[in-house]
């Protein structure tokens, strides 16, 4: 197990190197915005521009810039400084990480609780009105984009512009606010972020459980005289939940890299919001840093999933 994890981590480093190479090419070689111009502002003197280029080393050949960037990233874990406001990209990412984790954490709990319950009931009561109703609802929920859902939620329930002003609206989440206020501010974002995932997980679990309940070992459990409840929970769900762990790991990995839409709609200062702003302002070095961070999060979650899988399924051996 130990050697497996070390080997996987080395692979992760290699993968990150490839990702960083690609992002560097995408953002620097393919011209999008001139970083120096971004920094100097509109109508800057050529001399000022030149000065900025020299300060940031933007006048050097691309290959030299690339190696310098790589050296900083991999040896010093330094993602550089924002072209726009000189802020350190790494500390910006780390500052905003807790907010994103906060958002995801609540949403994960919510979508697992709702999605798995609905999925299980649907599978057990297959073909019933409840099953058809929840699966249709799930389809609608999957199809609804989070930004649309977010705006609808704000329009309906937000305390400032809402028709039924019940909950704090956009921008209510503050780093420094007390815990209770933060929780209140996150209720709507949690629900919005969790909606589509809950629907996907409900459908996924329903399909898994239906398949599992047709397995021979389920028949064996019944033939042993195990109660139906025991058959469903102890035998059926145990098998049906295992693939869900994989999906959950990947989803969380991607979201840690920023729940861009939800964070933007609700103005939550997380990694997604940071990335969104950086993209809008052409702050290439921040976008690069955020992309690498996302890749790292996905890789680590993936590794976690694979290790978990070997714990959950005794047939799986890590090698």
């Amino acid at each position, binding site marked *: 197990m130990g050697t497996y994890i070390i080997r996987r981590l080395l692979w992760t480093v290699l993968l990150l190197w490839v990702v960083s190479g690609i992002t560097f090419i995408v953002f620097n070689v393919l011209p999008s915005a001139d970083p120096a111009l971004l920094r100097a502002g509109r109508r800057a003197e050529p001399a000022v521009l030149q000065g900025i280029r020299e300060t940031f080393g933007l006048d050097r050949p691309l290959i030299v810039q690339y190696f310098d960037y790589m050296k900083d990233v991999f040896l010093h874990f330094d993602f550089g400084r924002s072209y726009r406001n000189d802020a350190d990209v790494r500390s910006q990412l780390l500052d905003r990480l807790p907010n994103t984790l906060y958002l995801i954490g609540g949403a994960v709990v919510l979508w697992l609780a709702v999605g798995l319950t609905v999925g299980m009931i649907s599978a057990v009561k297959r073909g019933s009105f409840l099953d058809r109703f929840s699966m249709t609802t799930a389809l609608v929920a999957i199809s609804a984009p989070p930004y649309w859902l977010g705006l609808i939620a704000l329009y309906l329930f937000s305390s400032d512009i809402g028709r039924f002003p019940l909950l704090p609206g956009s921008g209510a989440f503050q780093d420094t606010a007390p815990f209770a206020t933060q929780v209140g501010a996150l209720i709507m974002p949690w629900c919005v972020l969790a909606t589509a995932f809950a629907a996907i997980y409900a459908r996924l679990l329903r399909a898994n459980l239906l398949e599992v309940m047709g397995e021979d070992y389920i028949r*064996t459990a019944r*033939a042993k005289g195990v109660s139906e409840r025991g058959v469903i929970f102890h035998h059926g769900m145990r098998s049906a939940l295992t693939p869900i762990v994989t999906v959950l790991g990947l989803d969380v990995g991607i979201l840690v890299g920023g729940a861009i839409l939800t964070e933007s709609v609700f103005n939550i200062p997380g990694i997604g919001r940071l990335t969104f702003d950086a993209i809008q302002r052409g702050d290439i070095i921040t976008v690069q840093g955020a992309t690498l961070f996302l890749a790292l999060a996905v890789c680590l979650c993936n590794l976690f999933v694979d290790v978990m899988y070997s714990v959950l399924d005794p047939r799986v051996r890590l090698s």
Partner: protein
Amino acid sequence: MSEPILSVRDLKVHFNTDDGRVKAVDGVSYDIGPGRTLGIVGESGSGKSVSSLTVMGLTRSKISDISGEIHFGGRDLLTLSESEMRSLRGEEIAMIFQDPLSSLHPFYRIGDQLVEAVQAHHKVSKAAALDKAIELLRLVGIPEPKDRVGGYPHEFSGGMRQRVMIAMALINEPKLLIADEPTTALDVTVQAQILELMIRLKAELHTSIVFITHDLGVVAEMADDIAVMYAGRIVEFGPTETIFDSPQHPYTWGLLGSIPKLDASRDEPLVPVTGRPPSLINLPSGCSFHPRCPYVRDAHKRVEPTLEPVKGDPGHRSACLLDSDVRDRIWEDLREGKLPAEARADVMAGDGAP
């Protein structure tokens, strides 16, 4: 024969599917005495598994339509509630299945699965149940059972897994064991070992057994009585020796003719039962075997045969419309090695019928 332990009367199991009503079992009756073994033989879709799963109460569903009577332990199982059936399953009637790998839960240790079988019916500690599990694993011939209880199903070989299944079925000392093709998924040498084990356990434990198989060679070793099923009905029933010595149904002849014999020359072709099993949604009219029967006559396409005692042998019953002396002559011919067509020509010539 003493009081039967299981008595099935006119059992019908129909399933209402989107394609139509599937008559999986269509009027089956049989008895099993204590300590006896009944072999149920038939090809896929003949209803042999469905009838046994129904005894276990495992075919109850929204789409199934079950009628008849199943008497066991003084009660009609078809009238019992689901929870009453549950307390019977695994305790008084146990079952083993065809594929031991897929029949064991891949995520749980063998020991835990055996313990669950005990604890589903008895309030005992896990340690006591585990001791019982180890004892049963030893009984079925698993070496070093104390270590093996901690293993997962995929760590066992096919034969060992089936031994585990047998141990699990017998752990609560059931009165009746239903074995649904327990050797079909195994290698031939392992098949022989499992059969040997079952014969030994039968002698030791005096459990009554329903042994379902499509393999006549297997029932010849195991069964006291044989029921031959075709299209959801029993077409022939009798003691094992009788079924092999003087079978009285063309389908049984077909089954016997399609197994290789040790004393036959190697290039002698096997005679398969021609045609395919009928659709259980649209059963053929009259005798449901008539489209495949080499000896069919026009009347057989209209009249339904019933399972009736064979002349001179009340323990032997057959559902065939041919006259009993005609059947005797055909069997004589077949036994001499004649092909069904030749046997048919012989009896037809004698009759003057087409």
